[in-house]
């Protein structure tokens, strides 16, 4: 790593500034690219916290290797490459110990998700999802918030809403389908397919 002896005030290239030891410039890089990397990993890992831990690892690795980055290439692709390498290693370790029926289903679905990579940018999907959430009615939004924002167990959601377990799980399923269709539509529109 280069010594942070002097930060050239005139340098606007954030990578050059990071190489010169400007950690604030690296914070800017993290802010700019975190959504892409975190969404990419969150979609491919079962545990949200695990995904964020790995995303941190991506940026720590990038920082330690920033001097090897070819500045003629897009930074995002480089970060994505690091993420994919770390993800591969991570999954290799995890799969060695994960077994069971639900795991088989997940493995199959995750292989499908991996196959979608060429067609779907997870950051774009996340952006579209934000817009779609705003289209939900109040009741639906409250249910989604209880399940995902507040992470309230389903049994408690049932108690709070006075609805049966199967009714709540089916409502959530319908909402996910609605959001999926909405996201799909927004992405297609953004790509000029509609």
């Amino acid at each position, binding site marked *: 790593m280069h010594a942070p002896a002097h930060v050239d005030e005139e340098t606007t290239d954030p990578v050059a500034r990071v190489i010169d030891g400007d950690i604030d410039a690296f914070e800017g890089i993290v802010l700019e690219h975190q959504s892409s990397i975190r*969404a990419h990993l969150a979609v491919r890992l079962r545990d949200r916290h695990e995904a964020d831990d790995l995303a941190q690892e991506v940026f720590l690795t990038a920082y330690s290797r920033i001097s090897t980055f070819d500045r003629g290439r897009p930074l995002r692709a480089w970060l994505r490459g690091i993420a994919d390498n770390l993800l591969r290693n991570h999954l290799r370790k995890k799969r060695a110990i994960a077994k069971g029926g639900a795991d088989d289903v997940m493995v199959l679905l995750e292989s*499908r998700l991996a196959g979608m990579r060429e067609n779907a940018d997870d950051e774009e999907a996340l952006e579209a999802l934000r817009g779609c959430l705003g289209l939900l009615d109040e009741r639906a939004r409250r249910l989604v918030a209880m399940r*995902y924002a507040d992470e309230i167990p389903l049994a408690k959601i049932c108690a709070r809403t006075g609805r049966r377990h199967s009714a709540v799980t089916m409502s959530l399923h319908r909402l996910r389908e609605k959001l999926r269709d909405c996201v799909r539509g927004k992405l297609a529109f953004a790509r000029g397919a509609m």
Partner: protein
Amino acid sequence: MNMAERDQLLADFMAGALSEDRQHVLLEELQADADFADRVAELLRIHRLLGLELAGASAEQFAAEVVHMIRPKADASEFARKVVARIRSRPANRRRRWRPMREGAGLSGASIGLAFAATAAAVLLIALVYPRTAPPRASSPPTPAAEVARVDAIEGDVELSRSDPEAGGLARPGDAILSGDRIRTALSRAKLVFGSGTEVLVNRGTSFSIDHSDGAGFIDMEAGEVFVAMGDEDRGFVVRTRHGRTVDMGTRFDVASDSQLTTVIVTEGRVISSTDRGSAEVDAGQEVALMSVSAPPGKVKEANDLERRLAWTKAFDPKTPQVVAKVPKVVPPEPVAPPKQTVEEPPPVAALPVEPPAPVPAPAKPATPPARPQLPEVVGFSLIDPRSRDPIPKGIKIPDRATINSFRLPDRTIIIAANTAPRHVAHVKFVLDNGKYTMVEEFFPYTLGGDTVHKGGGYNTLALKSGWHTLTATPFVKSGDGFLPGKALTIRFRVVAGR
């Protein structure tokens, strides 16, 4: 399998409620139908993105955490050349950079090397800084090797305990505090001064141990509240609670903790509050809530009403360190006007037909707990007339250990409401008889069993068996994307039915 059956299968799968047999059925369906598998994969993607979007750390929080993990590496690589210049050139509140503690971070060869370099640097730093630290008071007796602080002032009886039982007892001003000592205040307060000049004010109902083994102040707090004012030459001071840890970066800050929440308020400079799931930088005038070591810190927000919330720290005026402040009177919650209902006042404990739980010796709870006006609290329970349609129903207060004779109540129905301060909160969670019955009430009045009074309706009836019951109500307030619990209240009451 038809569409409806597939939907039910998927709904249960996403809810994690699929039996092993049905998992195999789903697997077969996915393997047999590629379109269906793609559809489910897309749903899984939405499911996971929802988790990230709605419950994940903010971009700023994430970036700040990454940068905090990087900073020590950058510092370590330049440490030998720059440490002295940096300490002397920066203002006191910008001298330290601390990496938040995170479990599970693996040690690579490089990080081991960095750790070694950092350790060597720390030794150098101690050698540079520590000899310049002054004892708290010029008149203090010589400081023993293991002494880390002194009791500067006390208000009431403050327990000081250590492994040598003969050395413990009630603390007195001037007493030495050794590494490993435990301080406990019940209805008292204390002011401690560390060797480096750092002052720690201890509020009522506080219990913690002190460690100074690594050269920095460390308070391991079980419950209560401390206010830390760092000395100019002191290094990172750590206050750890069951919900996370807070590391000073040259500042004055307050940490208040109870069984459910730790609140960190910064009045000067900056601290880093962290859990296993993330960290937050808290600057002057801001506060953060830590709810669990396994949850990210709450959102950093502006701290309101600081003067009132930290008024207790004025009990120890630095100009009169021996001051013993008057204990402010506990202001009881506003009494609720009793309707014409019948509640027997609680009999003396000895006269109760059922033995009450044994009294807990030396309660750690303060008579006046740390003020947290921004968080709601349940201030009492009331019996409500079930026939009332008043949107703000009047009730009769139910004291702890009361006996309620349902036979004498209107409709022979027991309707219990939790009274909160403020009156309206996000919701109130009721737990009856240690979880045999739980419910969340979102609308005022907050009644056990629920009601539709807010829509002009009535009260739901919850059949309470005769005998003793324990009821806990916890108010919650909306905070960002989630909810913060306020101060809960628990009572025991007995239900009887007879003339």
